[in-house]
């Protein structure tokens, strides 16, 4: 993420309204672009589906759940490797070994696809859906998995436009496909809707793929699994990635077994009230997605670079101290500003929940849960921001602590409150994220106070741990990658 700073800074330096607008749009697109587009696409399709009188509720639900499951579980697959590979690729860039990146891509792709196939085959065995539907859903699931992987590499290479355009185009085709199907077909089915959506995602896949080919002109596949050794070096990054993603979904998973549980086509478990509420709640933190990039990646990043630059390239102590102070002040201000802006949006959403419920036409229970999950989403957004900052400062121990409590508290409180029934849905999520938010905040304050010490001391910390993954990587290299 760090690299985007320079480009944005340039945009923000010309302080015209138009360029500022351009900058926000750009930053929104390039960083949270794919996430945003996917959410918007799903939202739009959901809205479109409501407009189809011929489409039965069950068909609509099957389609929506297919897409949701594909996203949720591909994210979980992705989370195993995301941070570790990001780190590995960033180090390759830093060491000016860009030519070694492509094999990592193919290596990660193979591992991801293997995991995805294993995961999907379980679903295949359990689900009684018909063969063609399962096949199309399989294509969609694999497509999304591959998209995440390419997204990682293109972000690392800072090829943000390609990402944004690919997602935009794919999203447009997905929505267009669903729309066309609803118009052409007299009696649209979930299979047709899913095919239309999958077509859009495949377009995104190819867009990203061409961007990959352009970004990494040197392509060969030797030592594809060398990156495994980073699992030995940074087991904490692995844990942080997994805990964060599982932490987000664990509340849903638990509530799928509580009051209001539904099963569609003997394949998909869900909770219509809670899942819907959570979906809308996550839309409320779009401002953070946009503002974080601008606040942190431009204003803060500049001070961050000065601070580390002074340390690494021979600054005097008083200069380092001063840079640390400036950086701390800027970070504090930006975080307060971020929290305030998001807070206003969240508060507005909570207060207006009743109005929206009537407007959209969902049951009153959803509005109740929505108030809670929106508060939780606010804390969740802050937790993500603080985790990213801790990782900026190489405080992996702190980031691990935060995400461990995120997952643990979410699971624990949701489970404890589950027997109290639907009235308490979302409360556990809100309480645990709020606690974790405070933990994260305290950790960042603590760490910032000693950041200069940690920069120096970390150079002396011994790398402990096993060689297990390094050995596994070498073994795979020998057998499958020359």
């Amino acid at each position, binding site marked *: 993420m760090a690299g985007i700073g320079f480009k944005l800074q340039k945009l923000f330096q010309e302080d015209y309204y138009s360029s500022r607008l351009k900058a926000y749009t750009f930053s929104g697109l390039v960083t949270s672009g794919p996430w945003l587009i996917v959410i918007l696409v799903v939202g739009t399709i959901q809205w479109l589906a409501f407009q189809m009188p011929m489409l039965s509720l069950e068909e609509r639900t099957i389609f929506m759940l297919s897409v949701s499951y594909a996203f949720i579980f591909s994210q979980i697959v992705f989370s195993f490797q995301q941070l570790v590979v990001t780190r590995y690729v960033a180090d390759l860039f830093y060491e000016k070994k860009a030519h070694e990146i492509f094999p990592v891509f193919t290596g990660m792709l193979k591992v991801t696809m293997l995991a995805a196939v294993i995961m999907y085959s379980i679903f295949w065995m359990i689900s009684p859906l018909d063969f063609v539907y399962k096949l199309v859903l399989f294509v969609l699931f694999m497509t999304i998995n591959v998209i995440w992987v390419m997204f990682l590499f293109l972000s690392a290479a800072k090829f943000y436009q390609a990402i944004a355009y690919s997602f935009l185009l794919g999203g447009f085709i997905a929505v267009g496909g669903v729309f066309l199907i609803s118009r052409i077909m007299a009696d649209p089915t979930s299979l047709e809707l899913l095919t239309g959506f999958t077509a859009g995602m495949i377009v995104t896949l190819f867009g990203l793929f061409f961007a990959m080919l352009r970004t990494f002109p040197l392509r060969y596949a030797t030592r594809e699994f060398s990156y495994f050794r980073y699992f030995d070096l940074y087991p904490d990054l692995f844990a942080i990635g997994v805990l964060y993603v599982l932490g987000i979904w664990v509340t849903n998973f638990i509530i799928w077994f509580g009051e209001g549980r539904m099963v569609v086509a003997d394949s998909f478990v869900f909770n219509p009230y809670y899942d819907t509420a959570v979906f809308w709640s996550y839309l409320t933190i779009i401002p953070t997605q946009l503002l974080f990039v601008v606040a942190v990646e431009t204003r803060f990043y500049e001070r961050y670079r000065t601070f580390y630059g002074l340390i*690494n390239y*021979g*600054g*005097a102590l008083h200069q380092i101290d001063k840079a640390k102070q400036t950086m701390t002040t800027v970070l504090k201000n930006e975080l307060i500003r971020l929290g305030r802006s998001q807070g206003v949006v969240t508060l507005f959403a909570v207060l207006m929940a009743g109005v929206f419920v009537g407007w959209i036409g969902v049951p009153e229970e959803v509005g109740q849960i929505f108030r809670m999950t929106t508060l939780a989403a606010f804390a969740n957004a802050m937790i993500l921001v603080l985790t990213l900052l801790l990782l900026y400062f190489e405080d992996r121990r702190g980031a691990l602590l935060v995400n461990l409590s995120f997952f643990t508290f979410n699971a624990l409180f949701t489970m404890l409150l589950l027997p109290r029934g639907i009235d308490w849905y979302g409360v556990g999520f809100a309480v645990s994220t709020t606690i974790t938010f405070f933990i994260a905040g305290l950790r960042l304050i603590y760490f910032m106070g000693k950041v200069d*010490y940690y920069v*120096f*001391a970390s150079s*002396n910390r011994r790398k402990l741990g096993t060689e297990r993954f390094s050995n596994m990587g070498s073994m795979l290299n020998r057998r499958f990658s020359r």
Partner: protein
Amino acid sequence: MKIGLVLEGSYPYVSGGVSSWTQTLLEEMPDVEFEIISIQPTEKRPEDMKYVLPENVSGVTHLYLNEPGQRGKGRMKLNSEEEEKLSDWLMLKSPNRQALGIIGSRIPSSEAFFASEFFWRNVKAAYTEEMNGGSFIDYFWMWQSMYMPVLRVLHQPLPKVDLVHSISTGYAGMVASYMKETQGIPFILTEHGIYSREREEEILQSYWIPAPYKPRWVRFFHHLSREAYNAADEIITLFERNREYQEWIGAPSEKTKIIANGIADRHIRPVIEPVEHDVFQIGAIVRVVPIKDLKTMIYGAKILQERNRLFKLTIMGPLDEDEEYAEECRLLIEQSGLTDYVELVGKVNVQDWLPTFDLLLLTSISEGQPLAILEGMAAGIPWVATDVGACSELLYGRTDDPFGPAGFIVPPVHPEAIADKVEWMMDYPRERMRFGKNGRERVRQYYRLQQFVDRYKAIYEARREQYGGHRV
């Protein structure tokens, strides 16, 4: 009695004054058991040894400055009192043996130490205190490289002994202080050259230490010396001038003592009747290396030749220690047209050659207490030597000396003065003979090997008694 002999960068892997002194000490005390504690920069193999260890050496314990020490596990946990003591020591404020004890036994590993907040606070405090405006990260790394060898040495296993005897200050003195602190044993310090002065010169001349950091490095080595002076029960040196330096650096004068080198009785010759040579025979017993400044000697010879004096200068000593310098000297002799006057004979048995000389010459720019001068004096031959180290003390005698001069002292790097004094010696054979006799008498009185051995033995015994006798 088992004595730990701590040596830094010398015996048994490097030959030279300190090493041959050590070999003599070991050989002359066959009834005392010694454990050699040899501090070396990097790992040494048995075949690197330059000396055959005598029977009474129980073994060699190696301490390596640049090899990782024993790695302990865990984080550093010091109480505030320990932190304060260690802090004082790191800041080079005052010598404090307990600080060494803390480093050796309370710090689990150098990694844990350098990653600790305690270390970080001290670097910052020192940087601020020292006014530094320079690169902080460089300063931080300097601190690491300064204390890394300290931790490494103290984290390696040390032998148990009854008494520790260090043959310099520096890291060796530090190890001895630490052993005294942790084993409760007496610590004897013998200093040949003045360690901190030698390091100071090296540091000031080095190009690889950035100028702003030189003062701290100099202070660090002075600090190590003060530490050793403070901890030692006896501070022994070879001659008065060095004793004064030690006092000046911080050695308490009541602990200081002079024990000179000695010559074995068999080398102290009876009076030889003077033999008149046709050609005046001059000898030089030196390793052919720059510090001995042979070029000044050759320039001096050139002046004598120009004054039409007949003489033969024989330079005895190894030519292979600095071959480039030896070649330069050879060329200089050739180009000055001195091939008939000056000869480099390489390494020879000095005792065989000594009786043939009328005069001996030393033109060093740095010396301790040169054995060569003692050997020449013992053989009854007069000297012309430069005013370095103990030369003056040897040739002129100390204040209460009854024997009179054994030669002339000239300033270093002064060919003219050398030529003048040599010419004087040629012209006054009777006085020359008396000078030789004076020297021999002085050696017989003050510089006998047996005296050297007896005094060290007495010190070992007395201190051992004082600290409660045998334990190992």
